[in-house]
């Protein structure tokens, strides 16, 4: 038997055990998959019933249509991240956890790794499946694209990765606020309320600032041809989204490391 010692890999294994034995977290994960698939199919059916004409037809993005569920699923993924840490603060379990890992940060990194892995593992197949289903539906009106066309594979996989980063964002907010309600409220605020507020600004300013908001920036990767006026480039936008998540995760690490558990 190997020696008794806390290692990052062991903490990760422990966090995986916790995730798979926490029904609330599994439900969030399942909800994310259902939202991606069900809403993508629903929206594809809706669009095929009312096909675009003229200018709308030119800018029609069949990939985005089939991935429409990502925008709803981001909340489920984010809630998963929040729950993973706030459930420990709510019950006091965090003290047991941190007494075993008094250096504390391996626990935060372990949760981050596990939630990223879990979300990617389910969201990539879900995104690919809903893309194929969506295109099959849109194909009835010859509106579909194939996976091999430029930017399409990136958008589909990007949609799945977007959900993983949304979960990280939730984890960071949960670790910062140590409250389930607070974490979920902050997540909603950041992803939905802030864009609405920015929308009240004068047109060009709203577009210019709006590009850099976490949700808008991150979703650029799910669009095959992002509009430079209102959106960053796909990977630039995704990078900005990741930067938000990492920044908040860093702040959470500082909060967790300092002071009392």
């Amino acid at each position, binding site marked *: 038997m190997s020696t008794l*010692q806390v290692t990052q890999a062991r903490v990760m294994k422990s966090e995986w055990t916790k995730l798979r034995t926490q029904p609330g977290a599994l439900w969030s994960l399942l909800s994310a998959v259902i939202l991606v698939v069900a809403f993508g199919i629903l929206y594809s059916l809706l669009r095929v019933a009312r096909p675009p004409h003229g200018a709308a037809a030119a800018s029609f993005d069949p990939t985005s249509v089939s991935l429409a569920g990502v925008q709803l699923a981001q909340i489920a993924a984010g809630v998963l991240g929040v729950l993973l840490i706030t459930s420990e603060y709510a019950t006091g379990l965090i003290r047991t*956890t941190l007494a075993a890992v008094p250096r504390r940060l391996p626990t935060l990194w372990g949760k981050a790794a596990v939630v990223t892995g879990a979300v990617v593992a389910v969201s990539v197949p879900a995104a690919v499946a809903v893309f194929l289903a969506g295109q099959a539906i849109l194909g009835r009106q010859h509106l579909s694209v194939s996976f091999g066309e430029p930017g399409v594979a990136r958008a589909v996989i990007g949609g799945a990765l977007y959900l993983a980063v949304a979960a990280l964002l939730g984890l960071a907010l949960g670790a910062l606020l140590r409250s389930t309600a607070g974490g979920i409220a902050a997540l909603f605020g950041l992803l939905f309320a802030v864009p609405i507020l920015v929308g009240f600004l004068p047109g060009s300013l709203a577009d210019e600032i709006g590009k850099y908001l976490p949700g808008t920036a991150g979703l650029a990767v799910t669009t095959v041809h992002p509009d430079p006026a209102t959106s960053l480039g796909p990977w630039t936008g995704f990078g900005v989204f990741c930067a938000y998540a990492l920044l908040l995760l860093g702040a959470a690490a500082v909060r967790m490391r300092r002071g009392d558990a």
Partner: protein
Amino acid sequence: MIEIHELTKRYGPTTAVSDLTFTVRPGTVTGFLGPNGAGKSTTMRMILGLDEPTSGSVTVNGRPPQAHAAPLHEVGGMLDPRAVHPSRSAYHHLLALAQTTGIRRSRVDEVIDAVGLRSVAGRPAGKFSLGMAQRLGIAAALLGDPATVVLDEPVNGLDVEGIRWMRGMLTELASQGKTVFVSSHLMSEIAQTATRLIVIGKGRLIADTSVADFIASAAPASVRVRSSDQPGLAALLRSPDVTATVADDGALLVSGLAAERIGAIAAAAGIAVAELSTVETSLEDAFVDLTKDAVEYRAASFEEEK
């Protein structure tokens, strides 16, 4: 071994623990007593590396709690038996804890058997009774076979059978050479298990002693006397070392003299004695006596703040 040196912990303007210094040694059960709010849980959190001391130091088995490579193997703690995820099974709760440190799976089964939770190990821990939750907490504390065990109020809320089991478990751990540090706000819970005592009040050390010495020093036994001439006998007995007070029922309460001496003095003075009995100080009285000042001081300072 737990060594605490000039330990102080402040939360904002509140001082929870003030300049505590004591050592908890292996091989015995050491009780950690104090009224509610005395700073016991705060001290235990610092021993487990959860709270950062404002000043002073805590070492467990010679090193700060954060410095151990395998903390669960050094110090096992139970702070709050209800601190579990309610829908996770007891087995998985323990397994996740074990995995952080590379503790083998078979050890999880061992501790489950040791605390008698085998038949309910697969059930959600949130559905456990308090007694079962306490056992699960003990199992978690023992998981890493630690040299030091720290338990906050482990018998709180247990039934008679549970208390007996817990006492047996604590004594057994101490006999294995472990350092066992157990808090309580009730002296009677601790006195039958612990041999050493650390008493704190208002975050300060009041006593660091053996249970026997603690009881002896807190308040001496007194003697109840009824006689044909109470005022006369009282006058005969009183001296700088002896006090004699009249109880509500008219009996004389004498402290500082043994019953035999009192009987002899009364006989010599020709006073007929109707009752002569030694009143032992109860453990709870001894404890209340010693922590009285700390509690009063707290109430007074609370008034001042207003």
